[in-house]
């Protein structure tokens, strides 16, 4: 009895150590997952390039230089110039920044909203019917058509692009979170928490939410990738990021008109898009393997 406080501090220390060990084990397991590491690596590299890349070039994205129109890649212009004589390298860098910003904002915002919708509709049955019918309806719209119409009405600004994509992609997050939460909700320990008198908010956020995080991350990385693609499409159609400002999509649009003479205007921004999306897709696949212990690997004897 007398050493009860001693015992409880021991327990705390042990608990702390266990947590620590568990974390380092998780990190080790993550690093052992080649796919996830590659995808994350590729994404980080592209982010660094987009951040630091413009610093090492003397050119500015909006500098027009009519003498140097449509010049192929050279020491002066590493990725060539466009039909206004603007430096493609710097424009691609700024365009990548814009894409990443949009992808990141959409993934974050739709995750926050999607998680709330998913969790609460899993928990409250009547709300579920209402919210799920709404998400069903929203999923019927091709993102790009809805985005075009919204932009046609509200005007082509980066903000409007982000907001529309959030509207279209939030259902994707909400559905995944909801289906996970529905499973967790039926677990006996949640019932036990009810019996102990835990508040709903506590149960939802402290006990159900953590169990949905893994699939949320996978889905968010998917939303990141599709938002970047959709933004590129919008700008390519001329209804995304407004004209003089560079985006990967509108560089491609300028390049389309001169595709027979200036391949560099298509290849470089195109490669950048593929790089970003590929990084996200690899990361997503890796995360799925990492988070799903059921994928047992067959070993071949040869």
């Amino acid at each position, binding site marked *: 009895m007398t050493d009860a406080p001693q015992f409880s501090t021991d327990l705390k220390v042990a608990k702390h150590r266990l947590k620590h060990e568990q974390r380092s084990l998780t990190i080790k397991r993550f690093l052992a997952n080649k796919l996830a590491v590659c995808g994350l690596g590729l994404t980080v590299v592209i982010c660094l390039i987009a951040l630091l890349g413009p610093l090492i070039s003397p050119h500015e994205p909006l500098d027009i230089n009519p003498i140097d129109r449509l010049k192929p890649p050279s020491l002066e212009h590493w990725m060539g110039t466009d039909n206004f004589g603007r430096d493609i390298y710097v424009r691609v860098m700024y365009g990548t920044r814009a894409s990443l910003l949009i992808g990141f904002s959409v993934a974050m915002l739709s995750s926050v909203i999607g998680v709330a919708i998913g969790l609460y509709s899993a928990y409250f049955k009547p709300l579920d019917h209402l919210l799920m*019918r*709404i998400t*069903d*309806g*929203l*999923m*019927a*719209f*091709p*993102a*790009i*058509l*809805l985005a*075009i*119409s*919204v*932009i*046609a*009405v*509200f005007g082509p600004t980066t903000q409007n692009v982000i907001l529309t994509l959030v509207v279209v992609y939030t259902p994707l997050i909400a559905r995944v979170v909801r289906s996970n939460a529905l499973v967790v909700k039926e677990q006996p320990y949640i019932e036990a928490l009810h019996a102990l008198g835990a508040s709903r908010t506590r149960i939802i956020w402290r006990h159900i939410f953590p169990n949905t995080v893994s699939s949320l991350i996978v889905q968010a990385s998917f939303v990141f*990738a599709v938002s970047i*693609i*959709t933004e*590129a*499409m919008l700008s*390519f*159609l*001329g*209804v995304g990021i407004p004209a003089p400002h560079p985006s990967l999509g509108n560089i*491609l649009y300028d*390049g*389309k008109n001169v*595709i*027979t003479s200036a*391949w560099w205007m*298509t*290849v470089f921004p*195109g490669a950048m*898009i*593929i790089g970003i*999306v*590929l990084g996200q*897709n*690899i990361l997503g*696949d890796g995360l799925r393997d990492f988070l799903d212990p059921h994928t047992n*690997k*067959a*070993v*071949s004897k040869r």
Partner: protein
Amino acid sequence: MISYIVKRLLSLIPVLGVVAVVVFALVHLSPGDPASVILGPDASAADVDRLREELGLNRPVPQQFFLWLGNALTGDLGNSLYNQTPVTEVFLDYFRPTLSLAIFAQIIGIAVALPMGVFAALNRGKTIDGALMSFALVGISIPSFLMGLLLILFFSVFLNWLPVAGYAPLSDGLLTHLEFLLLPAISLGFIQAALITRITRAAMLEVMNNAYVKTARAKGLSRPVIVIKHTLRNAFIPILEIIGQTFTTLIAGAVVVEFVFNIPGLGQLIVNSVERRDFPVIQGTVLLVAFGYVLINLFIDLIYGFVDPRVRLDQ
């Protein structure tokens, strides 16, 4: 089966309701007055008033909605502000090439993906599986319009093979039609194929774990029968589901791919309509495409019921 169909039809009502509200809200909840949005900032006050009257904008919003909905249900989506033709007519004119392209691309996608996915699943863990799956992973990372640009660059510019861009309607003969559609369809079909390959492989692996596949082997059935009848057919249900869900991405892709290849389809219609501020056309196009998505998924659910007796016979 009949009760299943009825149930599916009833479940469409809320979805279509949401679609209608969103499309209606697009124009009617815009900041400022729809009439001045439609006419642009340079319009005179008299013009705006006339349009307000014409569009019924002076009535309360719910009434406007039901009026619009009622018209929409009878197929009247208003007239194009640009050339006064009914929106449905304009839509159908421009929809044909898009539909051709989408179907052609989907056929290419499925034709390539099913064998690849099945083959990869059957050779799970081997080099060929790894190669196919890496290929598919890269495939889903190349947006279709970019694929189109790269294909143009490669085939038309470097090899000088096919027409770079343009379109010939079906009435010019099927072959000419398909010749012009070939590159666009490959661009669009490529990502579709990559996606379906991944799904097919995953679904096959899932089914192969089932005891009934072991039973089929224990019965001494031949390998093709086991693979096709007892694995692929069961795996077909999730594959179908993905085909339905990706309908919107397919149409979205088609819209942009058309723009790449200068095909006069929905892509061109919508881009032009945005430039012309032709809101009824934009609104109608979005509504009809969303409606198409709902119909396709209804159709797929019905096939689903046909394929899987558990769905058909429940309740």
